[in-house]
């Protein structure tokens, strides 16, 4: 399984599309936005925009990574025969989906770490050690629902459908979840949509941690609920995709 994780991670790191959308995008936009508005201070929490943006862009990068590294590659493997190639080896199929999930989580780390480093090095962001630790753990575990969504998309659709669905899922969740634009300036309807999305819960937990608050129960329960639902959906979809006809 370690070897499987290694080759799966290796192949994504060598994939140019992954590098652009998942690593360059959030990093580039963080540098851009924080240079424009980094010094603004949030009126209610007193947190600088450079810190809030770090969470937003980190969250976007992690979310994008977890969907990108699952949906399309997995749909392609099913279509291309690579899945069948592995089905006729001793590799058990539960190991297959667990590996996909683990790899997807590992691959969120470059985006999270690079955006965090950029924040520290270019904006002088500093947080108490406890807040850093909490942030990393929350941002890292919080991608599980998105990875599950990606796996479900990859299990149920062909590569040419998985591609746009993954893109829509990725940008839709990021945009509507308030990762690109603050919720406060959204119209009322969009704001009520955002409130129920896991991407908003995910980022909210991060924003609350950097503001020195304890993550709110509604955000934690929200993402846990989505996590359970999407994992169940992903397992159902995966079984459907790998069933012997």
């Amino acid at each position, binding site marked *: 399984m370690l*070897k*499987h994780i290694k*080759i799966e991670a*290796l*192949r*994504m790191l*060598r*994939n140019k599309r992954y590098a652009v959308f998942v690593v360059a995008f959030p990093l580039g936009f963080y540098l851009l936005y924080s240079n424009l508005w980094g010094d603004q201070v949030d009126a209610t929490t007193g947190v600088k925009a450079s810190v809030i943006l770090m969470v937003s862009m980190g969250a976007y990068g992690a979310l994008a990574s977890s969907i990108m590294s699952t949906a399309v590659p997995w749909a392609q*493997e099913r279509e*291309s*025969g*690579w899945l*069948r*190639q*592995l*089905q*006729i*080896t*001793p*590799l*058990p199929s539960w190991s297959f989906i667990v590996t996909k999930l683990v790899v997807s989580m590992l691959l969120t780390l470059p985006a999270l770490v690079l955006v965090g480093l950029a924040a520290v090095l270019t904006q002088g962001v500093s947080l108490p050690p406890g807040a850093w630790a909490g942030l990393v753990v929350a941002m890292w575990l919080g991608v599980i629902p998105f990875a599950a969504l990606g796996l479900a998309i990859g299990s149920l659709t062909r590569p040419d459908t998985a591609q746009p669905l993954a893109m829509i899922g990725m940008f839709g969740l990021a945009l509507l979840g308030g990762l690109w634009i603050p919720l406060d300036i959204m119209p009322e309807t969009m704001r009520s949509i955002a409130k129920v999305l896991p991407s908003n819960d995910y980022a909210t937990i991060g924003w609350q941690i950097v503001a020195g608050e304890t993550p709110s129960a509604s955000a934690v329960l929200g993402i846990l609920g989505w996590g359970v639902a999407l994992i169940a959906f992903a397992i159902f979809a995966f079984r459907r995709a790998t069933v*012997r*006809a």
Partner: protein
Amino acid sequence: MNAISFSKVTRAYGDVLAVDGLDLDIPPGRTVALLGPNGAGKSTAINMLLGLLRPTSGQIKIFGETPERAIARGDVGAMLQEGTLIPELTVAETVGFVRSLYPDPLPLDEILRMAELTDLAGRRAGRLSGGQTQRVRFALAIAGAPRLLILDEPTAAMDVESRRAFWDNIRAYAAQGRTVLFATHYLEEADENSDRVVVIARGRIVADGTAAEIKAGVGGQTVSFTLGTQSVAGLDALPGVMAVEITSGRAVLRTSDPDATVDALYRKTTLDVRGLEIAGADLEDAFLALTQES
């Protein structure tokens, strides 16, 4: 114990029986060709053998176990008809990964050597030619040192030269006491590379034996001579003769026993036999005769 055993295996797609009551036992150590035209049910049979498809009825065993168990134990390696590799991974990474899934694999160097991939070990799969990709897929099939190697039309995309090299490699692998089952619609391939040919048509076995037996079974040999204006009467009654044809003055006798036929031709007829020829019909004739019946 048989390496492979199909008993009364049927697979239906809707109303169509792709495999129709297949009974087949293959002892270990043999190299067997599953020969048949396209759509004969070869791939369906192989996919069931690999546990990728479930039989509608009947039972399949590999070394006495269900296909799923045999695969989980690492007893089976296979080259399916289609299958691309992960383009971002190198040949050595791909083969190294698959071999690591088996309990008792061949050493990586040996796999690469047997599949003639040593020089391509560092190349990414996305940059391989079609023939090179096939060699990698062969390497994946043998990586786990499986006791049973299954190949579904393995040379379909190969040119003549690579095909020859490929079969040399398969023979080397089989020579170590392993069982090989391959599907093909190339007659020469079945003839040259197997020690048993199972001919399948419309989901049923229509012939089973060595290539020579199958040729003989359909009267695979001919005795011909210049008949000229002589009478054909009595030729069809000669020993061994199954059919008589006259084409441009020559009599062509299809026979199951050319020695007896020729002997009788000289001793028991008064014909003036000139320009005698005895020819072994090729497997192609046998194959057409078998698969076009009924």
